């Protein structure tokens, strides 16, 4: 675990600072927000200690966390995302990330090893060929970005629940955490990890997953917003600890279910 938690190369310091700065609204708006927050939040957080000390940001964090719970309750593990015909696939399917396309990680497929850790029986790492030898499934589903736009993509890969079974994962654990080559990461809830459409994607449009869509492996989950679908995935951990994620740690809603 410590190996995976250390600072990762490839994260642009300037972008990081820009991200952090965006978390802070300007002072005037901040004051206004705080006023409006106490007005709004008070009305339905009666009994809470908001009056004493909580700032608007903290109140919003709490409500966002409450919304995680609501979303987990709304999540039906058997409800499938609608699928589409091949003709509906968005062309060109958009590249998206917090860096420009030409700065996307370049992972060497030859030396690639997918590391599996945490609450699993078999911690062996996997080569790309070994992953390709597992049963493959194809899905044409809609990816919905937190920004609002959506695009239909054509993904093929290994069902994550099948993989978890093969490595002897403790599926009573709460979370699955993914680590990506560029330092991106995600933690998802176990019910979503076990959803039949949650996939370790190795192909797009029946071709080897191109670099811009996350070579060598993306985790595709149509039941979550796009940013919860990590690309360039190099490691996975089954865990009872929420290890957070790139955007989640910066203020985006954790569950982000659809």
């Amino acid at each position: 675990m410590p190996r995976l938690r250390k600072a990762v190369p490839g994260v642009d310091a300037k972008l990081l600072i820009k991200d952090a700065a965006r978390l802070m609204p300007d002072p005037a708006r901040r004051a206004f927000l705080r006023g409006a927050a106490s007005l709004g939040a008070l009305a339905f957080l009666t009994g809470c200690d908001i009056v004493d000390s909580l700032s608007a940001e903290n109140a919003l964090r709490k409500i966002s966390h409450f919304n995680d719970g609501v979303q987990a309750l709304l999540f039906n593990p058997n409800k499938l995302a609608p699928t589409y015909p091949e003709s509906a696939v968005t062309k060109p399917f958009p590249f998206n990330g917090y860096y420009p396309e030409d700065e996307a990680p370049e992972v060497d497929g030859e030396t690639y090893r997918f590391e599996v850790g945490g609450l699993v029986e078999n911690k062996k790492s996997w080569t790309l060929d070994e992953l390709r030898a597992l049963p493959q499934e194809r899905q044409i589903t809609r990816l919905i970005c937190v920004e609002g736009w959506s695009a239909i993509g054509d993904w093929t890969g290994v069902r994550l629940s099948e993989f978890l079974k093969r490595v002897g994962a403790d599926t009573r654990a709460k979370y699955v955490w993914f680590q990506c080559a560029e330092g991106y990461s995600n933690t998802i809830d176990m019910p979503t990890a076990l959803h039949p459409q949650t996939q370790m994607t190795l192909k797009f449009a029946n071709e080897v997953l191109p670099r811009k869509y996350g070579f060598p492996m993306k985790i595709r989950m149509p039941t979550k917003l796009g940013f919860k679908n990590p690309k360039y995935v190099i490691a996975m951990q089954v865990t009872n600890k929420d290890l957070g994620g790139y955007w989640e740690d910066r203020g985006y809603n954790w569950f982000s279910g659809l």
Partner: protein
Amino acid sequence: MSTETADSPMIARLPAERAVIHPRWVRITHWINAVAMVVMIASGWRIYNASPLFPFVFPDSITIGGWLAGALDWHFAAMWLLVVNGLVYIGLGIAGGRFRRKLLPLRPGEVIADARAALTGRLSHVDLSVYNAVQKLLYLGVILAGVVIVLSGLAIWKPIQLQELTALFGGYEAARYVHFFAMVTIVGFLVLHVVMALLVPRSLRAMITGR
């Protein structure tokens, strides 16, 4: 003058110099709704700006949230206030008979006549307890827009768990447009509503003090 002066027997018994126009529950839900709606609209504009449906964005200075994640937090916090308050308002409005008494019947002929009178400055606002046909249409319309904006919002928020609802709006992308135009309708109402309240300040007082 109308005989519609009170909403409940209890209020009718009050030794009022002026009759109660808006009972307390209407005033409370009205102002909570005002706060919730302004937060929803201003944070919604910020969310819209992240991926605009049309070739324009809203100036950041009139949005809430500071950035996309902040706006989403505000939107999904105020949604509880809006929905819980809206359910109380609609529930009491239907159960107590206020909607039926105040907003119905709505006759197209009366709407046209009253609209003409309003535009030529001859529509009376002497008795604030009785709504003219244009008011009835606007208030019913904005309640309907409120229902549509909540349902289309749910369709966008949960397009898989509530996919039947999303399909009803014509799919995820179509539901975004429905949500947007419901906002436009509500903002249009809001502008007119505030202008009218300022033109007839007694109506604003009635929504604060009840009389």
